[in-house]
């Protein structure tokens, strides 16, 4: 690791490093992947992996969390996206291919991909 010559180099390093411990830092968006046994069977793991790769490629800080089976087995694999205190949007039958678009439009664009959304959960006050 070459010596840091200035404060800017330190700050540049910090921004890179911050990314790596993002799991422990506060972020606004949380992506929850249903990982019940049925979810896994339906390919939730691949979807999560796609999400992870996409997020790291685009240097986006977002938590990827797994959860148990919510019950809509038909729509597995299910992925919820919660941004700040926006309503929690759940996408159904998510496949790795769909991940880029979801991230593109929803996470970055801030617009829900209506055709794939299967549910909306508004947080009580």
């Amino acid at each position, binding site marked *: 690791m070459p010596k840091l010559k200035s404060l800017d180099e330190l700050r540049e390093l910090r921004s890179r490093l911050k990314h790596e411990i993002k799991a422990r830092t506060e972020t606004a968006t949380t992506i929850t992947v249903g990982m*019940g046994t049925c979810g896994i069977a339906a390919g939730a793991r691949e979807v999560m992996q796609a999400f992870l790769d996409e997020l790291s490629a685009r240097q986006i800080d977002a938590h990827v969390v797994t959860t148990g089976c919510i019950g809509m087995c038909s729509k597995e694999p299910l992925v919820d996206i919660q941004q700040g205190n926006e309503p929690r949007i759940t996408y159904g039958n998510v496949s790795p291919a769909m991940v880029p678009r979801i991230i593109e439009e929803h996470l970055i664009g801030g617009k829900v991909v209506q055709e794939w959304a299967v549910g909306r959960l508004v947080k009580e006050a």
Partner: protein
Amino acid sequence: MADLHRADVLVSCRHGRTPELVTALRDEIERRGLAEEIRVVETGCSGFCSVGPVITVRPEGHFYASVQPADVPELVEETLVKGRFVQRLAYKEAAGRKAITRYEDLPFYAKQMRIVLRNCGMIDPRSIDEYIAVGGYEALGKVLTSMTPDEVIAEIKKSGLRGRGGAGFHAGRKWEATRRAKGDIKYVIANGDEGDPGAFMDRALMEGDPHAIIEGMIIASYAVGSHQGYIYVRDEYPLAVENLTLAIQAAREYGLLGEDILGSGHSFDIRIVRGAGAFVCGESSALMQSLEGKVGEPRAKHVHATDRGLFDRPSCLNNVETLANVPQIILNGADWFASIGTERSKGTKAFCLVGKVRNPGLIEVPMGMTLKQIVNDIGGGPPKFRKVKAVQTGGPSGGCIPASMLDIPVDYESLTEAGSMMGSGGMIVLDDRTCMVDISRYFLEFLKEESCGKCAPCREGIKRMLEILVAMTNGTAKAGDLERLETLAKTVQTASLCGLGKSAPNPVLSTIRYFREEYEQHIKDGYCASGACRELTAYVIVDEKCKGCGLCIKVCPQEGISGEQKQPHYIDQAVCIKCGACYDVCRLDAIKIVPKAAVSLGGNGGNGHGTPAATPAKDKPGAAKGKA
């Protein structure tokens, strides 16, 4: 680390079985092929000793307590794979029986304000990257690039930061004195000796967040104009030495230590020096003697270390906790720091809350919080059936504050007024089973061993005080011993050369001040109400109260208790070793502590009609029989 981990499992406790737990976790994750996504991080101690080893899963925030290696498969399966919380491993608040799942909701941490211990339990102490990731060395960068040394000193003075070692000397004023002292070679010294029995916050800090101390030292060196620093670590802290060494090497590699730090032209390097197990070396001038390779003996006090300290050169010595505060003050500004704490004691203080309290552990609270809040809200109050008798702060140099005064705020002035002192931060909760005379004897025993022996009042005085106290605890004390003890303590306090000698009498004087009658009881009646002084104590069973439930028989290590079911039981005095196990376990208050003299050997001692002085009633919520 190229790829991105989805979740981090923080094992943040130095419990004995932690290494075993970490390997089990890593193996299981490996086996489940989750190594890419899940990372196991060994962090420093997070302070929650009573329920160690503890695990926190990020980002979910799940908090598991007392995790055994055997629980690992279930944990990995449920939480890491399926994302479900394992109820079994949740922390259960004793009183409310309600499991608390998230780290943030734990009452233990709720009331705390963790500035110095901020990273402890959060980051991997051996990785400089993680320290930088959470904002490490930003303060140093700010200081080196945008502040002059005088500005740094002014900031520290404005913050009101005072020495965390115990004396509470204003850090800013010390830095200023060192800066103004003549001499081109100056030293910055971090005191990590922490000799007090029962104190381990410096250890947790050095093991958990070494870089915070290093950053603090570099800022101090820039402020006072020093190019060489020493960290004096207690010999009994090998892991602290290891983590500090790794941190220093990493800092050097990153150009944050050594020549021309961050291109600022300021150069500073740090060497670690291990102590040799002498408590006296915690005192600044003795520490410097030890650094110079000499016998740890304090020097004359009128020579200020800031003028002529180590190797007779200006030296700025601060406790490691004081230095760890510096980066935060620089980052968040003096006003932020000054807003915390009381009018004259600013910022927070780390305490080792130990003794008779439900949740002992390492805590950091803002100055001014009352003892009661600390003991009850954070510590969870005394264990069942027990009542807080007093709180001992400041270790062997501190004193005891009786239960009646627990409302006093924790800051330098009020503790000193109460006859104790802030000290390094030891806070021992004592209950009715603790004998104040015995506590004083314990501390003096320690101090007699640790006195450097140089000056007569401390060497000879402590030994003689101890003799009197031992006489009190074994019933050979004579009338007037208490007054002799007091005058002797007064002389040791005034005439001794260094802090050790001057503060050694505090435990004795403060216990006499608040618990004089206990001393008189020991001398006149030869009776130790708490039963701690075994030579004075006898345990007898009160026939009327004893329902013959047999609980005491089970716990007696000597099998000295006999009696039929439902019949009043009987303690054989010849065999009884006065351990008090029966007394603790008996729900019916049927066992009484009586002066040994009142019990003739053999027989039940006249069915327990002890001498007056009511035995302390146990704080029992009714006689409900609880299942074991």
